[in-house]
Every structure is written in C-alpha cells, then in structure tokens.
C-alpha cells in the first residue's frame, strides 16, 4: 500500500483524518432515519477536555465493519486527500500509550499544522461504547 485515502474533518480546531476504507457512508445528522443504528458523538469517546464541544454541521459517519449499524457523529468532512504512506509520521511513545485504544495512530503535516489520523474502528472498541 503506497497511499491511503483520508477524509479530513475538523473538531474544535483539531484536524482529524479518517481512513476512507473504514467508512460505509456519510450523511447529515438531521437526515437520520434509521433508529436501529447505534450512534455516538465523537467527543463522548475521544475526550477533548473542554467544557463543551460545538458541532457546526454534524454528520454521521457509518462504519463498515459492524453487524449492528454503528455511526460516529463528527463535524462535516472538509475534503478527501490521498496521502503517501511514507509521509505519515508515527506518534511519540507517550501519545501512543495513552490515547484511547491507540485510535490516533499517526500524523501528517499540512500548512504548519497536523492532520491527526484516527482509526475509528479502534476508537469504538473502547469499553465506553
């Protein structure tokens, strides 16, 4: 694998990059009609240590791998980018050790800041879900 497709979204000024191969479909929260789907806001399982988190345009990111439909609510995707794997920087030991289930697993630099790569499947394997 030389490159991966990343869907970039922004939460509280943090750029998150989701691996497209883990996403089944994306739609607005207001369009949600499937009551059987389990939905969870991202900040409930990935702490931002802020009193309140605002979602400008919440979207549901339905994940691919679950028998029971499962969606994570994140702000709307801004863009999709294709990044060479060799441009991904691994994260320092203390981040890898402490971040929820190792769900943030790498970083890519963009415009003097980082896109943090988020493995949503690892994220929802937490006991909190």
């Amino acid at each position: 694998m030389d490159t991966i497709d990343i869907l970039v979204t922004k939460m509280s000024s943090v750029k998150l990059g989701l691996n497209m191969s883990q996403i089944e479909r994306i739609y607005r929260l207001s369009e949600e009609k499937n009551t059987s789907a389990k939905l969870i806001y991202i900040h409930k399982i990935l702490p931002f240590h802020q009193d309140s988190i605002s979602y400008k345009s919440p979207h549901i990111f339905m994940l691919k791998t679950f028998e029971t439909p499962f969606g994570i609510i994140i702000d709307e995707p801004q863009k999709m980018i294709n990044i060479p794997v060799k441009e991904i920087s691994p994260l320092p030991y203390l981040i890898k050790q402490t971040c929820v289930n190792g769900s943030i697993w790498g970083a890519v630099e963009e415009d003097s800041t980082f896109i943090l790569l988020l493995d949503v499947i690892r994220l929802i394997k937490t006991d909190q879900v």
Partner: protein
Amino acid sequence: MEQTEKILNSIIPEKQSDQLNEMENDQKTELVIFKIGSMTHAFIGSDIKEILPYETIAFVPGCPETILGIINVRGNIESVLNLHKIIKKSDLMPTRRSRIAIAERDGIRSGILLDSVEDVVSIPRSNIYNTISTLDPGIRGFVDSITTYKDLYVTILNVGKLFKTIA
C-alpha cells in the same frame, strides 16, 4: 636548564591542573534550573537533550490532560507534557519566557513545557541532599533530591518518574 626540561616544567602544572579540573567535574552534576509558577525546580542535565523556545502545540484529543499535544522538532514529532497538571499546580498561559525542554530517560522521549528556564549550572554533588518529608504532596513522588540555587530551595525532579506516571 635544558630545553626539554623547561618545556616539561611549563606543561606539567597545566596538565596536572587539567586533571584536577576533570576530577572536580566528575564530582559535579549539571542541572537545568527552571520555574513552574513561583517554585524553582531542576532536572538532571543529562536527561535534557535540548531546550526550545515555546511554539504552538497541536492538541491531540483522547490523551490525558497531562499531555498538551505534539510539536514538530526538525521533522520529528515530539509529545509535550503539562508539568503543571502532573504536579497538580494551577495552569498558566505560556509566555515569551516559556520553554520546551526535550527530555529523554529509559528510552522514553518527550518535551516538557516549563514556565521559564533560569540557568544551566554545574554544582558539586556534595551540595545535593536527600529529599525532605515536608515536600508538597503533589510533587513528592517525583523528587529525588534537593539543592539550593541563588539562595533558593530547588527540588530536583526525576524525569523517569514523570514519564512513568503518564505511560
């Protein structure tokens, strides 16, 4: 006096002096003196690889509050720790005096945000004393020893213990 002897006489005291200096250095420990709030602390110099000016730290969600985020140091990503949170002191906003010390111990490497770096000094080991029982409970678990610097009481923090409390 023959020339050889003259030369020897001139260099031997210098060499002996160098050897004495080396012996003295062996008996000294380098410390990085810094401030957190109004308190003065130190790290053992050999644990600190470099000291950087403050730069914007990219927040990483999902990590404990003791980790402020990450920075890019010449192409390598380093984590940055919030020492205020670790030693249970109130947070302060970074200022132009703030510094990020890149520390390494037991194979773990990370930046640590400091309110200011006051000095890097070499002090005789005889001036380093065992810790005392009246230390602030928030800091006691990270202190190996104490010393003085410009009449100030300085607690020497153990980088390895700071890292262990997070990992």
